[in-house]
């Protein structure tokens, strides 16, 4: 696809979008993904569809892991050539527009999609593959509740019989979203399994309201008590350090990113890339090159401290962060600004007990909500007023930082916008 094939209006819109994004970056206002896309779409409301036409696109959506999985998938598909991607986490249609406008003529794109926008982006981009990672509680003062979101995804897929779906067999909500698509035709869905640590949003079958039953002997298996929904057999699975493909071949993934959850994200990426014709053996080494994702997992040295940044936005991702963090001094930072959601109730859905015995510091706009939570959880802590105060309060060595979205961005800014 070249710019010349775009309708004149779309071509102008794409050009304005790129210029605005560049200006935004140059003036230090941000990475420019949102403003660029917004201006472009004002000039041509169908700009995303125009820019997507003729490309082979993968969409990645879910509550958690979508930024990292998008990055892994772009790296894996990158075996074929340049890949357009919204690597700054700008995951709404403005961000997709901006990413494609910036990307030039490459025929490949991997786009992270906010779960609320999946139907809209499916319509605009007619992707080759959609990866559905997981659904759990997140920003409930604003977001659609979990079962409702699963239904929206299911409805969206019904309008796109041709799209291939790569979906998480361990999450009953995701299985419900993809099950009708799978039943409508052979080979429409590829299932993967990466384990599911957070299960509190999947006690009840989204199809019929009966209990989801789990097998004591095989902790991954689950089925609805009435049989409406059962765990599909996954084609792609993981162990501690490898992805196992549908032929049973084990692909060691030497990731720089920590945690078993990222081995699962790697499996998803390899499964999606496989649909683009990339063999897992070729793609796996590419995943090892990813060192950090929009600041997440980044390590920064300051004043003799090695500071590692972990983003945790909701109960499911806090559990994963505790799994990744080493038993070292840990700073927790909580805000409740617009992008975080204004409701901090979820703090009581997280069990902070794994932090007992570590030096724990807390900060952020809503540190007092966290203070009460930790006190009730019998986790000793110290409140600090700033990031600098936290760095000064810990001995030389590793400082693990776990923060929710805007708190994470604040600390990233302190560290000069580490990527």
């Amino acid at each position, binding site marked *: 696809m070249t710019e010349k094939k775009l309708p004149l209006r779309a071509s102008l819109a794409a050009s304005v979008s790129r210029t605005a994004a560049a200006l935004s970056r140059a003036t230090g206002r941000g990475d420019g993904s949102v403003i660029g896309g917004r201006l472009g779409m004002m000039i041509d409301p169908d700009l995303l569809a125009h820019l997507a036409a003729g490309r082979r696109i993968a969409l990645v959506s879910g509550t958690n892991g979508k930024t990292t999985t998008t990055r892994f998938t772009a790296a894996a598909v990158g075996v074929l050539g340049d890949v357009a991607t919204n690597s700054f986490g700008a995951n709404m249609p403005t961000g997709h527009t901006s990413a494609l406008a910036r990307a030039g003529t490459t025929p490949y794109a991997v786009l992270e999609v906010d779960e609320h926008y999946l139907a809209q982006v499916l319509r605009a981009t007619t992707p080759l593959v959609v990866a559905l990672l997981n659904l759990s509680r997140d920003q409930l003062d604003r977001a659609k509740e979990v079962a409702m979101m699963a239904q929206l995804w299911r409805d969206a897929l019904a309008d796109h019989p041709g799209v291939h779906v790569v979906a998480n067999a361990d999450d009953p909500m995701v299985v419900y979203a993809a099950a009708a698509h799978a039943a409508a035709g052979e080979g429409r869905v590829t299932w993967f399994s990466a384990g599911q640590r957070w299960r509190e949003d999947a006690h009840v079958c989204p199809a019929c309201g009966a209990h989801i039953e789990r097998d004591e002997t095989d902790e991954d298996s689950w089925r609805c008590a009435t049989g409406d929904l059962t765990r599909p057999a996954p084609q792609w699975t993981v162990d501690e350090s490898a992805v196992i493909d549908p032929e049973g071949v084990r692909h060691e993934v030497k990731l720089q990113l920590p945690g078993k959850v990222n081995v699962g994200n790697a499996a998803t990426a390899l499964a999606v890339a496989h649909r683009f014709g990339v063999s897992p053996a070729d793609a796996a080494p590419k995943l090892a090159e990813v060192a950090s994702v929009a600041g997440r997992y980044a390590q920064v040295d300051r004043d003799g401290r090695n500071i590692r940044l972990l983003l945790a936005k909701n109960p499911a991702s806090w559990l994963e962060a505790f799994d990744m963090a080493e038993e070292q001094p840990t700073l927790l930072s909580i805000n409740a600004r617009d992008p975080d959601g204004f409701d901090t109730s979820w703090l*009581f859905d997280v069990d902070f007990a794994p932090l007992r015995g570590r030096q724990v510091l807390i900060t952020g706009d809503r540190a007092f*909500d966290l203070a009460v939570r930790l006190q009730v959880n019998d986790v000793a802590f110290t409140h600090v007023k700033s990031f600098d105060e936290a760095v000064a309060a810990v001995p030389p060595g590793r400082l693990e930082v776990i923060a929710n979205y805007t708190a994470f961005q604040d600390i990233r800014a302190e560290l000069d916008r580490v990527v």
Partner: protein
Amino acid sequence: MSSALQIVWIYPDLLSTYGDRGNMLILAHRAKLRGIPAETVEVRSDQALPYGDIYLIGGGEDGPQALAAQRLQADRGLHRAVDRRAVVFAVCAGYQLLGNSFFAKGAKCDGLGLLDLHSDRGPTRAVGELAGDIDPALGLPMLTGFENHGGRTHLGPEVKPLAKVRTGIGNDGATEGAWSGTVIGTYSHGPALSRNPALADLLLRWATGEETLAAADDTWHTRLRSERLGAAGLV
């Protein structure tokens, strides 16, 4: 039967959306601080309701709310508990289902009839900070919380409002929550007791029959309250 205080969380498999576990954890923690032996029990919706001193019901979506009401109606355990003056603390969807009727998925559903009130759908969704002056008869400082619900609740003569609204919507923009005997319902959702430790202590006093409890170090609760009431322009 154990001599420890029994704190029963009703149907976390159905009604646990907004950190509802917090109320159970806070009550157990504050009992422990006072040397009161306490046990927590989580009862699933396919289990019979056990004996309890304090029962907690949380918030949830329409489908699970309607299902929880049906199961509790069939179980009758909560009705018997209220008859023997056990303590009940219910939030949001759990509060609505204690009334005579409520709306879920567009249909009117029978409530448990344990509080004289009924709920319907409001013109807007109430989302945000909620604060109000608690009924002076309860002797508690101002209520502070976060609400997120589409319902409006209309109180009958047998219950009293828990609070008069200063910020937010609550029942109808004028009153918030309801209480009668040792049963309290509120739209302050999720871990409502984290911002209202005195309310937690009231539930413990009712359950134990103690007139007063030993003072607890509420430094962090107090800072949290000041910050949230300050954000609502109320201090």
